[in-house]
């Protein structure tokens, strides 16, 4: 299996995905949506490791649910809104299909990019090609790298509340607040650690 997608310059890939998505936003053709979805899946199948392709299929499960709900909405509340509930016309079916396939098209474009691009490589190429300032580039990288720690921290915060006998529910905001306080502390510590390694906003690239 080839792995050519991850070898494409991430910045060019990024621009391509943004331009494609923007064009897709203004065009309403069923066949175009299906073609974009098909091409993206084919590219993922041929140009990415099979692990990533399977991951994409997994992500498409919730996307399918969303697409189905949009399909139903399109049928009943779309073009012919005056028709009675339960009656399905050709136009409304086409409208429903159009809306649901758009979801698949946008999702597949996003997956094509996300599953074949390394965040580090993307930021570095943005720095080179788009002259992204170092401060933003490394700030973004730090934030991306902290994501797994944030998840861990949220679990720690929930545990801290439980251990101290504080009641928290699944949607409780208290642990999120604790986690955010910690993240705020982290951002300071991390920026100091970066300065200690000679990081300088206007430094060399």
């Amino acid at each position, binding site marked *: 299996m080839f792995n050519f997608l991850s070898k494409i310059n991430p910045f060019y890939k990024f621009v391509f995905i943004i331009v494609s998505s923007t064009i897709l936003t203004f065009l309403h053709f069923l066949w175009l949506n299906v073609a974009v979805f098909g091409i993206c899946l084919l590219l993922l199948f041929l140009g990415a490791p099979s692990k990533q392709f399977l991951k994409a299929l997994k992500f498409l499960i919730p996307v399918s649910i969303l697409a189905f709900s949009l399909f139903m909405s399109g049928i009943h509340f779309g073009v012919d809104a005056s028709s009675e509930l339960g009656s399905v016309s050709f136009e409304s079916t086409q409208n429903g299909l159009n809306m649901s396939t758009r979801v698949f098209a946008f999702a597949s474009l996003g997956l094509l990019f996300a599953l074949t691009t390394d965040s*580090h490589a993307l930021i570095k190429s943005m720095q080179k090609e788009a002259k992204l300032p170092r401060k933003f580039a*490394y700030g973004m*990288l*730090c934030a991306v*790298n902290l994501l*797994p*720690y944030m998840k861990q*921290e949220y679990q*720690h*915060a929930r*545990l*801290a*509340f*439980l*251990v*101290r*006998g*504080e009641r928290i529910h699944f949607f409780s905001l*208290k642990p999120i607040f*604790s986690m955010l*306080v*910690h993240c705020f*502390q*982290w951002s*300071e*510590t*991390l*920026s*100091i*650690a*970066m*300065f*200690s*390694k*000679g*990081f*300088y906003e206007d*430094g*060399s*690239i």
Partner: protein
Amino acid sequence: MSLSATNISFKYFKDTNTNIIQHFNLSLEKGKITLLTGKSGCGKSTLAYILAGLYPENTGFLESGEVLFEGQNIHALTPNERVPYVTMMFQNPDLQFCMTNLNHELAFCLENIGVPEAKMPALIQNAVRCLDIEHLLGRSFYTMSGGEKQKCALCCIFVLRSQCIILDEAFANIDGESARDIIAMLQKMNVTVLAIDHNISLWDGAYDNIISMDGSDANKNAFSAHLHPAGEDILTAEHLSVRDIHYPKMSFQKGSISAILGKSGCGKTTFFHTLIGQNKYKGKLTLKGQTMKGLRKKTLFSQCGIVFQNPANQFLALNVFDEILVSVKRWHKEKDEDWQKEKTLALLDLFQLKKYLHYSPYLLSQGQQRRLAVLSMIAGEQEILLLDEPTYGQDFENISNMMKLLVEKAQHGLTIIFTTHNEHVAQAFAHQIIRL
């Protein structure tokens, strides 16, 4: 002379009258390892940040004094001009990297000092080979132990070619063996080192000078305590295994103090998290003769408290007073508010934290944070207390006071299990020592 600081006075807030550091002088000899000790909260970490040029650039106000490296004022330089002279290694191994792996991190360091991209691979390979950590180069930091991360942090300093390294309790969360490995690496690098550490024994045979910031005796480690006989078994573990960690048979008696020792990653924290129902396990865990499988969380936490390894994970409130008041209110619901507040003040006084009542817990020093975390649990009435590394970052006096209070609590029936890397503490205060 390598690095020298003269007449340093520093404070965090412009409006406060008291300085954290007052007219402090220090000079480090070139190529020597100097240890800096002092009571927790006396300003050691703050001094380290000033010496490394990170304060007051990032926070605080330098009232007087200057830091010179071979005649060059450190604070007049930009970060990339400064690193060849002096840099720093931090306590928290998780928060000193902005990349996902060592390879990228080393490239980031080299980019900062203006090394062309073409020359980077050779320099990176040379650094990891010299420090014998080639196997860590491509691994994600997220999967590394604390000791491995600190070795990576040192490797970054190596490629920056810093002539002076300041370590701010860099071994706080790692085992003795990893710490000694890093000390050996430092000796190999032949640089000037200033290390803040309460655990002097780790540095035996490696350090040249020792400086106490507040005049306290850094070599004290003769702990002593009178331990009373323990009661019947309250907690037992048989054939316990969590993921790929297999534990020996363990039993903990009511009113006893047990110390768990072992290398980082050997499963000390995992054992505690298993006891509080956070991990799936095989084998048998019994609490008061009953299996712990299926025990409700509420029941479990009313009997078993824990102090986390990272004290910041313990905090729920926005100030020190409220932090303890939360625990007092939970365990003494029947008492009136005045009583609860008085009790909170008394507890804070016991741990020398009364003067920080209105501080955010996160603004306390590492040692003070650990004391506050322990206190937030001691304020409860659980029967079992698990303490993950409660003594690190504490000076002799604070360890003594804290452990004596725990001994007193144990006399009243509290079963205490703590992990530590400090052999002296384990020998003096534990009924039994379990080595994993």
